[in-house]
């Protein structure tokens, strides 16, 4: 009986198996690595229409976040400031600067500056700034070192798992209420922070929700 299959074909099933395994592992690996907000969102730092620098304004000049993001304390939305807020200073500082051309024309015409949104949760979720910042959670925990950023960068994934990580163990993230807007606050030690956190969570009865209907309402 003549040979139908050449000798090398003996290895084919094994080779196919190896190839499929390698491909399978790679695809699973790539999906886990890439199909997550840790990849899709973190690091997003769009070029803004005006080269506004938080490092200069919030860091070097030490302007409080609330000077511009005024309503962060009272509402779910943290307002991006109207042009008039910029003009409080820029009607006298750098009045000839090209970088501020759009700010001046916006102030005169009343057209909004088209700031590019950076952090944007899906619209089936409910998020509220005021409940967080009035209950011991600093901007820093969610937005990172904004006071050092030349361009605001998406620091944290803001996925459901990330929200829950803190909701399950708020004592690791809370800080004294007077330090909420101080991006440079450093606890004396990790230990001291947790102790303070446990006490704060108890005294203030901090109770972050874990039920689905809190965030998906």
């Amino acid at each position: 009986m003549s040979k139908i299959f050449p000798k090398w074909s003996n290895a084919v099933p094994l080779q196919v198996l190896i190839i499929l395994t390698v491909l399978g592992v790679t695809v699973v690996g790539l999906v886990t690595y890439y199909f997550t907000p840790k990849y899709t969102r973190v690091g997003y730092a769009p070029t803004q229409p005006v080269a506004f620098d938080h490092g200069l304004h919030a860091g070097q000049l030490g302007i409080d976040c609330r000077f511009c993001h005024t309503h962060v304390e009272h509402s779910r939305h943290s307002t991006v400031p109207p042009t008039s807020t910029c003009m409080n200073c820029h009607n006298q500082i750098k009045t000839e600067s090209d970088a501020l051309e759009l700010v001046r024309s916006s102030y005169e015409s009343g057209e909004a500056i088209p700031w590019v949104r950076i952090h944007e949760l899906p619209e089936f979720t409910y998020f509220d700034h005021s409940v967080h910042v009035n209950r011991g959670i600093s901007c820093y925990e969610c937005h990172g070192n904004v006071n050092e950023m030349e361009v605001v960068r998406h620091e944290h994934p803001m996925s459901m798992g990330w929200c829950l990580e803190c909701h399950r163990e708020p004592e690791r993230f809370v800080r004294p209420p007077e330090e909420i807007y101080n991006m440079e606050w450093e606890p004396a030690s990790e230990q001291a922070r947790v102790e303070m956190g446990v006490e704060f969570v108890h005294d203030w009865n901090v109770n972050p929700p874990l039920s689905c209907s809190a965030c998906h309402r």
Partner: protein
Amino acid sequence: MRIFFAIFAFSLLALLSILGFRGATSDRPPIEIFPDMVRQSKYKAQSHSEFFEDGRTDRPVPPGTVHRQYDNPQESERLDDDHFNTGRVNGDYAEGFPMVVTRETMERGRDRYRIFCGSCHGGIGDGQGITFEYGMVTVPDFHAERFYDMAEGEIFETITEGRGLMGSYKDKLSVEDRWAVIAYVRALQRARVGTEADVPEAERERLGL
């Protein structure tokens, strides 16, 4: 087999170099992998609208609207109080405060002053806040004679409406907070001209007087 691995390694490398690593800074908008109900046709604060001519979802307040401040009973009960709301009584600047100034008022005032006034007027009200170094030299010193005599109502109007080169802060400070800030400005002035006799007996030792 070898050919397969060569192609495989090459395409993996190509893919990785296109996709990059997690957390790399980029100005590409985030990819929404399963865009099920991620963006819905509803209006959110400060976003864009195709419907309104000015392209905003936030609508301007119609003229003549009275802000009821439902969240603040103190303010909604005092809608007829001219002193409290405008700083004027019968057209003249009102002297004094339209409420009792408590310790909480002072603390609130200090807090608000540091956020909203300090960067220009300076922590002690001398007009030399951080912006002074950058060319904002027209900010007056609250310790000038004129400001000791200025009625509280006039300061209130300055905060509410702005004056000269200073903008209005009414969108940032509620009516109550504005009065609290004024109380704190008065305290700053008092601290400058105060003498040892103003310090209560019990506190003198602690302050080393």
